[in-house]
């Protein structure tokens, strides 16, 4: 889950100050490159030194299953299953956590005179790893998983493709937002397994930055993600997932 907002006057010391407030819950951190396009500036020669080097910080909980990502215009909360046997946390479990963390972030921003964040977009993403050998075998025949996507075989000259990548977007009614679907053949780096990574991201623009409105938008995004997933994937794959 994520909110994108207008850039805050968020400087390097704010990362440390914010971490100090959440450190009991998120004792680990990593510094990462920012998401999106940024200007990097460094000028040590002028009358006033300029150092503009945007970063994103990860704050990770003790169990390494929840993560907060912060940069000057984004706030993310991610959950991942730490081991295959760990219980699955559903949206209903995670949304209250995200809401609390967002409120804590907003309180911090307010105390540090950066003003309330002006939220431009709400986002819910589901990242699914479909392991090769579980319901599908060939990267060139994704129609086994996604029956509406077709084969991409040539009419005569081209044989089967080696791999297929797909990006699709669907507009929500009243142009309130979009569901983006990305299908990417990939390798999971933790165990080197071949997977199809299916990412569904619902995003919409809230009417205001009030928490109730933001939560409504998250619910809408989540509904599109769940219904979109169900709509795009095959009955056969549903059977396999139900058994697991």
């Amino acid at each position, binding site marked *: 889950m994520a909110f994108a907002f207008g850039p805050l006057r968020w400087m390097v010391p704010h990362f440390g100050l914010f971490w100090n407030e959440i450190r009991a819950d998120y004792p680990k951190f990593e510094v990462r490159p920012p998401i999106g396009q940024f200007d990097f500036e460094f000028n040590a020669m002028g009358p006033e030194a300029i150092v503009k080097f945007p970063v994103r910080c990860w704050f990770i909980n003790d169990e390494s299953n929840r993560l907060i990502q912060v940069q000057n215009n984004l706030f993310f909360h991610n959950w991942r299953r730490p081991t295959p046997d760990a219980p699955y946390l559903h949206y209903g479990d995670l949304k209250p956590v995200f809401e609390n963390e967002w409120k804590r972030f907003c309180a911090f921003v307010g105390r540090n005179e950066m003003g309330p964040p002006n939220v431009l977009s709400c986002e819910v993403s589901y990242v699914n790893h479909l392991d090769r050998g579980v319901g599908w075998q060939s990267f060139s025949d994704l129609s086994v998983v996604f029956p509406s996507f077709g084969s991409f075989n040539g009419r005569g000259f081209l044989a089967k493709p*080696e791999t297929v990548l797909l990006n699709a977007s669907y507009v929500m009614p009243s142009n309130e937002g979009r569901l983006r679907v990305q299908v990417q053949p990939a390798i999971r780096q933790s165990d080197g397994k071949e997977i199809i990574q299916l990412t569904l991201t619902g995003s919409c623009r809230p009417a205001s930055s009030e928490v109730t409105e933001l939560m409504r938008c998250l619910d809408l995004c989540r509904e599109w993600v769940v219904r979109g997933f169900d709509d795009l994937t095959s009955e056969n794959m549903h059977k396999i997932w139900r058994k697991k």
Partner: protein
Amino acid sequence: MAQAIQLPSLGMARPTHREEEPNRRQWSPVKSMESPVWLREAYDRISALAALKNNWDTYGGLPVASRAILGARVLLSNLDLEGFPKPHLAPIPDGGIGLHWRILGRDLEIEVEASGVVRYLKTHVGGESTDGEVRSLQDAQEALNWVLGT
């Protein structure tokens, strides 16, 4: 004394390759199958090696061990391989997998042994060679960068 690389920590190590923009938001790192272009083929080759039976070389060669398969896959999925040609992938009679690059007179062999231990052998332009253990992804990346002359 050789020490086995802990494969799970290999996977969780800081990625050494360039982070791909579409995957930046997510937490569990993945590598695109599209880059480098030969990655798909290399993975197919590893799968073929995994299917080798006992005595595949008629000299009593052992089947490729699952730890060697895993180690080779984890290496290829975590290293920055942009600009490198496809390695020659071959089974080793004791159950390991060898990855071999030759670039402008430099040879690099990385061997993932059946136990999961990873070793390298560098052969320089003049013919002299050095070898050692690969204890981390960083070690493997440095060996790769050497063969490219960087």
